[in-house]
């Protein structure tokens, strides 16, 4: 099964299927000497990743080439002629050498997302290295101290949006604590025909450009109960849109599964009775996906590459940069992997099937569920929500109240946040959360009470105890801030360009408490060190590299500053990243 776009010098004719997309432009520089190999049709038993590079010596060439996902040709950023970039399969404990040659006419870089490695191998231009100039080859070399599902992507400009992302699998030295017969990577991403810089400038002019789900006059008339009207009034008073769930919607994005559009229908094969490990990676620039496989339950066994106590669900939400490994046991001929965008404007789709060419029913998109005032961390307005059917455990406001009533032994990580002075009278903010709570057991907007068992962060529990064990000696509180209309993003109201680094001392254990003062969810990624998520009581929950922060939440995690150097710490939404970014500097 051809799961990727390949730069094939012979072009269209060799790929066979007319609806498959090709890389047609053979930039002279990109076409020569590529490692790219023809994809063999994947056979049952042969694993899924056709375009896979194994071994400890890897050569990657970053180049531009023309692709067409929508019928219009656009330039993409490819690795070895492939979108997504080739799967890198390594082995824990090995030292790998990756030679990355830049065939673009601008600088590039590759960041190994979630890998713990020396700072000068982390791939962030201007922070940990110079970047890779056009025509230059940079040699990454590092040892693998971990196993699991990870990914890599560009950390330069908008190259991640234009295709520079690929999966990494690190095989464990010890066998995995669960068995499976076969595995497939399911890399979800978003593609746009628009020039990403133009898109960014457009969002700064009209941030609601892609939102065609605003509530209308008709909705207002239909939603006549006064409680709902009060909520309408509150949203209007705040000058915000409750349908503002994604900055870029399906009106600009084509959602991809392993580089295939929904109609391309990426297919992963299995034999009935097999247990299949699916390694989900959200490699998108701006999209959150809600993933399910109708007819199958999924047992989540790893999050962000790290094993967790298995938990069986029917659906999970995956934010940008997160990964989840799930086990499924398919028995029918075909199943649809359905990943709808959070704002319900489109979906990525693939198929698990016993042979190529099969398809199962593709579900309809769920109806959009608007944000409520409770979602925004404004507990006082909770009575105005239309989520009256919530159980107490998922109602954000109720969860917060429950928490407040507890007299917890030991240090609670939840406190009423104090907004930093830099937020005061700051024109770069449009709101501050009044009563943010962790809401770890909340499936999130659009997934509550949908009749399916939905994964929450509270369900994730590492298969190992807190690897450090020390209580954090201090807490650093950072607020996620921004202005939706101006499309400005920052931490504590201060964008990266104006901010001092966060300074950690080598070896210390700190608690980072994030408070979301915006109306968007932000997946926050710390480079170089793990983010050990805590529960409401301050107990260790799960080890992650990217922690999703829905609006109206505060969440905290522990960080062991065991990596000397200058590290990036940022929102992983590509168009938020320039502002919502900090350098974390670990000194002796």
């Amino acid at each position, binding site marked *: 099964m051809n799961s990727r776009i390949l730069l094939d010098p012979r072009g269209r004719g060799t790929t066979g299927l007319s609806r498959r997309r090709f890389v047609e432009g053979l930039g002279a520089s990109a076409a020569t000497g590529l490692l790219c190999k023809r994809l063999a049709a994947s056979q049952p038993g042969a694993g899924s990743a056709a375009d896979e590079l194994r071994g400890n010596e890897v050569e990657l060439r970053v180049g531009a080439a023309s692709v067409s996902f929508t019928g219009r040709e656009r330039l993409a950023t490819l690795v070895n002629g492939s979108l997504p970039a080739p799967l890198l399969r390594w082995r824990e404990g090995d030292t790998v050498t990756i030679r990355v040659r830049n065939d673009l006419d601008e600088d590039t870089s590759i960041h190994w997302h979630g890998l713990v490695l020396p700072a000068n191998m982390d791939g962030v231009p201007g922070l940990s290295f110079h970047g890779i100039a056009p025509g230059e080859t940079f040699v990454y070399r590092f040892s693998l101290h971990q196993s699991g599902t990870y990914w890599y992507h560009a950390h330069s400009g908008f190259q991640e949006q234009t295709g520079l992302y690929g999966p990494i699998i690190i095989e464990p030295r010890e066998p995995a604590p669960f068995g499976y017969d076969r595995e497939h990577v399911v890399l979800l991403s978003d593609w746009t025909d628009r020039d990403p810089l133009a898109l960014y400038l457009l969002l700064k002019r009209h941030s609601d450009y892609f939102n065609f789900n605003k509530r209308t006059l008709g909705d207002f008339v239909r939603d006549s109960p006064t409680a709902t009207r009060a909520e309408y009034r509150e949203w209007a008073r705040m000058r915000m849109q409750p349908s503002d769930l994604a900055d870029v919607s399906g009106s600009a994005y084509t959602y991809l599964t392993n580089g295939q559009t929904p109609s391309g229908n990426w297919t992963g094969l299995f034999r009935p009775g097999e247990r299949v490990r699916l390694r989900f990676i959200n490699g998108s620039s701006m999209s959150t996906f809600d993933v399910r496989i109708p007819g199958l339950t999924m047992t989540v066994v790893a999050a962000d590459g790290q094993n967790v106590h298995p938990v*069986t669900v029917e659906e999970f939400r995956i934010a940008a940069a997160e990964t989840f490994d799930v086990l499924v046991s398919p028995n029918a001929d075909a199943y649809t992997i359905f990943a709808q965008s959070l704002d319900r404007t489109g979906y990525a789709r693939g198929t698990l099937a016993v042979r190529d060419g099969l398809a199962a029913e593709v579900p309809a998109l769920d109806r959009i569920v608007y944000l409520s005032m409770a979602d925004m961390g404004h507990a006082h307005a909770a009575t105005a929500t239309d989520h009256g059917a919530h159980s107490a455990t998922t109602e954000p406001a109720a969860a917060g109240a429950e928490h407040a009533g507890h007299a917890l032994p030991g240090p609670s990580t939840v406190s009423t946040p104090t907004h930093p002075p830099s937020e005061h009278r700051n024109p770069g903010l449009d709101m501050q959360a009044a009563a943010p709570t962790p809401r770890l057991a909340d499936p999130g907007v659009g997934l509550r009470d949908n009749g399916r068992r939905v994964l929450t962060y509270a369900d994730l529990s590492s298969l190992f105890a807190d690897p450090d064990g020390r209580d954090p000696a201090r807490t650093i509180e950072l607020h996620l801030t921004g202005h939706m209309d101006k499309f400005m993003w920052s931490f504590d109201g201060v964008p990266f360009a104006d901010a001092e680094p966060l300074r950690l001392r080598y070896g210390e254990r700190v608690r980072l408490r994030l408070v979301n003062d915006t109306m968007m969810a932000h997946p926050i990624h710390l480079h170089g060190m793990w983010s050990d998520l805590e529960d409401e009581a301050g107990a260790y929950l799960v080890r992650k590299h990217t922690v999703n922060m829905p609006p109206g939440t505060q969440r905290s995690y522990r960080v062991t500053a065991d990596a000397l150097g200058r590290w990036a710490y940022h929102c992983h939404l590509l168009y938020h990243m320039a502002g919502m970014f900090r350098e974390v500097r670990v000194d002796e």
Partner: protein
Amino acid sequence: MSNATMRIRHAGLAALCSISLSAWPTTGAAQQDQHTEHTEHATQDAPVVHVDHAEHGAVQPAIPGGTIAPLTDADRAAAFPDLGEAVMHHGMLEDPLNKLVLLDRFETQDAAGGDVLRWDLDTWIGHDLRKLWIRTEGEQLSGDTERAELELLWGKGFARWWDFLVGARRDFAPGDDQTWAAAGVRGVTPYRFELEATTYLADGGRAALRFETQYDVLVTNRLVLQPLLELNWHAEDDAARAVGSGLSDGELGLRLRYEFRREVAPYVGLVHERKFGGTADFARAAGDEPSDTRLVAGIRVWF
């Protein structure tokens, strides 16, 4: 979460595990028990927790961390490579130079005295909080320019929803050219009314005030009904331009546009224009009606 609920949760997970994962290794359950035990300790006795971890480390050698490695010079060199003057910018400016050209109104009006061509153009170039504004508006009646003005303003975002603008306005018609100093605000009020209020000062102590507000009613996500109110006030009579002191004129408009694309929206509407006080007297003296209700059709374009 209390320890009790934590235990319940883990018990539940263990059950799920045994149900769904027949191939789960036999150590799985044992590990979960240890984990449960650990969480009980976690909130009670930190030192015990630490010992606990060491045991877990032995069970899961794959997990990094737990001990802090002593640093070598090689570590230090790798941690802080010499980047010279290079600064972090990830090739993406947080606040790049941006621009907007908005032809908010470009319409023909079916006026009492003939067809009126009316324009209202807002343009800015700049950054998130600092912008240079160029605004022009005016109208022609049967090909003659009745009113035309051009403003050049410097704008600064000073509050969450408000920009302060200062600059100059040049009038080319009616009458002789005249120049005003301008200062004002523009922004969005609670309940999403867009608002512009500008004061103008000219030679001889002449002063004027303009207030404009509009609101978008979404009939659908593409069909937008836009009520608009504009009021002008002048401090002094200006007979040459047929303007009386006080509230001089106003417009109440209702325009219905269809956004084929966000950027391109033709519209139709109804506009009521009215002159007040001395300005109305000037109009009557010239044989004009002081108020007029007009059908309009036009296009709104931005890029």
